[in-house]
């Protein structure tokens, strides 16, 4: 497979996974904003998912519609859903001969849906959750189409590596922001809503309730979000999948290893052989080192498989 094609498939997949994360996050936070007694701040969400200037952030921090506009439709925000879907489609367009026609049409239609001016209007005037639902559904459609139609070959392996790398980075980012704030404000540690919110944003609240009966605790949250093999947004779940698809690439396609399995295996072991207790003791140090390793894997992929000349 051409390096350029592999890179495009990988990025296509990262953009979609990121859009999915952002949309779900927005939906949960919007619901919370409707529940809030005090003014609801969007600061942590915007911080995680964009590189906004402080000044602009202060202006919209408490205004849900403005934040939704910025995060979903703003052309000037490179991380808006509109821009990410456009990028995903552009990537897909240049590799149309490597994805199925169904998948291309699915992305093309997504692009047409999000470019429809009536959707932007709805986001401002009507129930924003309906709009977010439409956009989330398109992503479900994408994943379903990819799952059913894509050949189990090299292209799909690169796409899945992109997907799980992006997903693990997001989960780590969420932990980072949430536990980062705890350092400055220890009261948050016992704030049930604060943690409930974290779990909801990752779609893990129900699972948490089923697993842990004694209320919400930091250690348990770390266990679920980092170590639970059955939680599809846990870090270990994603890292296992990165490992799996990279091994598949190596075996099926005889692509050279160039130390990448070493990095992935090292990270996998680092997580697997940590206990919830030990992670809870280190917290940010652990989170930061995992994040660093994930970035390293991303860069190594780029240097070794995608880079030109």
């Amino acid at each position, binding site marked *: *497979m*051409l*390096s*350029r*094609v*592999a890179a495009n498939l990988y990025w296509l997949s990262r953009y979609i996974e990121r859009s999915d994360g952002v949309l779900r996050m927005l939906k949960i936070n919007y619901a919370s904003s409707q529940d809030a007694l005090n003014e609801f701040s969007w600061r942590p969400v915007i911080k995680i998912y964009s590189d906004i200037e402080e000044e602009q952030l202060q202006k919209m921090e408490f205004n849900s519609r403005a934040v939704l506009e910025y995060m979903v439709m703003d052309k000037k925000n490179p991380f808006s859903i509109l821009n990410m879907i*456009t990028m995903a489609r*552009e990537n897909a*367009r*240049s*590799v*149309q*001969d490597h994805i199925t*026609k169904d998948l*291309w*049409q699915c992305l*093309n*239609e997504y692009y*047409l849906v999000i470019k429809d001016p009536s959707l932007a209007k709805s986001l401002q005037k009507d129930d924003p959750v309906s709009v977010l639902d439409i956009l989330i559904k398109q992503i479900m459609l994408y994943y379903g189409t990819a799952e059913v139609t894509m050949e189990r070959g*090299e292209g799909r392996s*690169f796409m899945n590596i992109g997907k799980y790398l992006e997903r693990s980075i997001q989960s780590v980012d969420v932990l980072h922001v949430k536990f980062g704030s705890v350092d400055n404000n220890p009261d948050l540690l016992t704030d049930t809503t604060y943690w409930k919110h974290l779990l909801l944003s990752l779609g893990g609240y129900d699972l948490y309730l089923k697993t842990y009966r004694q209320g919400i605790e930091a250690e348990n949250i770390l266990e679920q979000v980092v170590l639970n093999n059955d939680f599809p947004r846990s870090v270990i779940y994603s890292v296992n999948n990165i490992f799996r698809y990279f091994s598949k*690439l190596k075996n099926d*396609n*005889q*692509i*050279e290893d160039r130390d990448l399995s070493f990095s992935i295996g090292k990270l996998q072991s680092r997580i697997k052989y940590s206990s919830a207790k030990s992670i809870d003791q280190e917290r940010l140090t652990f989170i930061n080192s995992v994040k660093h390793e994930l970035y390293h894997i991303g860069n190594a992929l780029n240097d070794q*498989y*995608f880079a*030109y*000349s």
Partner: protein
Amino acid sequence: MIAETVGFLEKYPSDLGTWDEMFGFDQNIRPSYQNVIKYLLNETSDDLNKKEELAKRLFISQGITFTVYDSGEGIEKIFPFDIIPRIITSDEWKFIEAGIKQRLKALNLFLKDVYSNMFILKDGVIPIDIIYSCPHFIREMHSLKVPGDIYTHIAGIDLIRDFDGTFYVLEDNLRTPSGVSYMLENREITKRLFPDLLPQCKVRSVTEYPNILYKNLKALSPRQISNPTVVLLSPGMFNSAYFEHTTLARLMGVELVEGRDLIVDNHKVYMKTTKGLQQVDVIYRRVDDEFLDPLVFNPTSVLGVAGLMAAYRKGNVAIVNAVGNGVADDKAVYSYVPKMIKYYLNEEPLLKNVPTYQLGNHDERKYVFENINTMVIKRTNGSGGYGMLMGFASTEKEIEEYKLEILKDPRQFIAQPTISLSAAPCYLNGKLSPRRIDLRPFALYGSDGIEIVPGGLTRVALKEGSLVVNSSQGGGSKDTWVLA
């Protein structure tokens, strides 16, 4: 069946001065169109409007679009499509097929000759200065041996019909003719619009095109291996024909590459893959000659590959179409094609040429200037309908300015008498109206000879009275049926 009796055929203004593909001169519907008209009579104009909508939606959702950039905003446009098919009878097709095969054979022999012994020039059949002054005469091609002596692997010959239905060749496109994806997609759309109609009318299929093309490309591989690497070289996503490049690459199952994916090492071409470099054997390029190799042609181009021409000359890679074909489809050389056919094949040309005046020739120029109102003047290396002068539709001032332009470099211009172009019914604003059309069949020249998929691209001038079918000038397209 008489026109007056039917619904949306009412007021179909047939002009006796042009050949109408649907109506005979006696105002009867030609037999080839009767099945379609019967089918249409069962539909209301509401139904047809819905079909028109469906066609648009299918094009948009499949991304059969080109992007127009307007104030930083990409807008998706579709190439206008008329839902009423253009129909060619089997007799007409037999004639077209034979005519194109003959013409293409001669053009291919001409290319071989002009890049080797130049017998046709030495024998004085074609004036030498016409060849040497052609910007597409590529000296680097001299004595370069191409596989099987085939230069014109893919040709799109543009045909038009005069008022009496005679076919004329308007242009030979031998460089990188485009439009074949529309031939394929228009047919797919028609299948959705008119269920069961195609088999009822016994329309011949066009789906073999990519298979034949792939078979021909594969056979060109310089390495005698079972699975040579064939690639389609595209200028990239911003090219207006990009959709066509992706379609063909997918239908043939070959890699779609850009210049930056390729590298030449030791006179061999490689593509950069995740597994390292992989040798490329055949390049179907959709990049023009002058951008192919910055070491030989335009040094600022990044669309091609440095060193490609050297690898080509060594015979390590096949390039399709061959480099330098522009000398054979140049509009000044065009007028000599009938002579080529006689010279190389000793046959009378089947397809007629439109009479052409060389403005480089003093007497002919004088004649053209005197009769400029009945002439169409074109640049010899122009395309897309740009830079043309239609004498009958231009003002005094435009004509005078154009004359000055011509006098600067007369070799770059030719003139042809205005040919009226045949008309076909189009569904416009709720009724059928005649619009002018042309036809571009696609011929594939392989080691087994020339094959032409029964069909082609019918372009249509959607503006009333217009004779220009180019998409850049408000043209659209139709599905093209060849009856069995």
